């Protein structure tokens, strides 16, 4: 198991109760694994119309593999401009 740090913005901050959380997952976990684990622990995430996950400042796909060195962030629906 490895501990991943996850940044939160916007409404995800409210759901997590802070700017960042830590979550334990297998090493070489995928974005899909992360999403499932987060939704198990923070079920309100599932109430969002959608959300993306970014890895190192880029939107990531479900199959992307993450490492504990990556900067990982939850991106709820954006509303800039």
């Amino acid at each position, binding site marked *: 198991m490895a501990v991943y740090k996850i940044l939160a913005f*916007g*409404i995800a901050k*409210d759901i997590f109760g802070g700017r960042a959380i830590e979550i334990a997952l297998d090493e070489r976990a995928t974005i899909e694994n992360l999403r499932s684990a987060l939704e198990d622990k923070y079920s309100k995430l599932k109430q969002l119309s959608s959300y993306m996950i970014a890895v190192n400042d880029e*939107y990531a796909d479900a199959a992307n593999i993450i490492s504990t060195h990556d900067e990982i962030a939850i991106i*709820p629906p*954006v*509303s*800039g*401009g």
Partner: protein
Amino acid sequence: MIDINITEKPLDVQECIKMVMSPDSGGIDVFIGTVRNMTKGKRVVGLEFEAYESMAMKEMKKIAMEIKSRWPVHKIVIHHRVGVLQVGEVPVVIAVSAAHRNAAFDACRYAIDTLKQRVPIWKKEVFEDGEVWVAEHP
């Protein structure tokens, strides 16, 4: 020339326009977002903008590069403000210059449409009786 910025300070519209002016340009299109006093019939006291700054800067640069590859434009400025804004204040300024106006209009509109779709910036609407994160893009 591409100039991208995210700042807590009030945006300087005049400065953004000056930055895109050039002797080989015939037209400039500028989009200025302003904080509206109403949303869905409810009175807004103010807005609070939050950015995932490193990623937002990167996405805004990508938008500018996409514009450069799609339209013959000269200079592009995209400035976004973060923090607490009052009604009438300016969260975003986009300015694009080009030899001919069609490219400037198309590029400027693409910039704001795309910014609202994928740049990681979030807005919280503050009402008299509470506040709510806006999710314009489902």
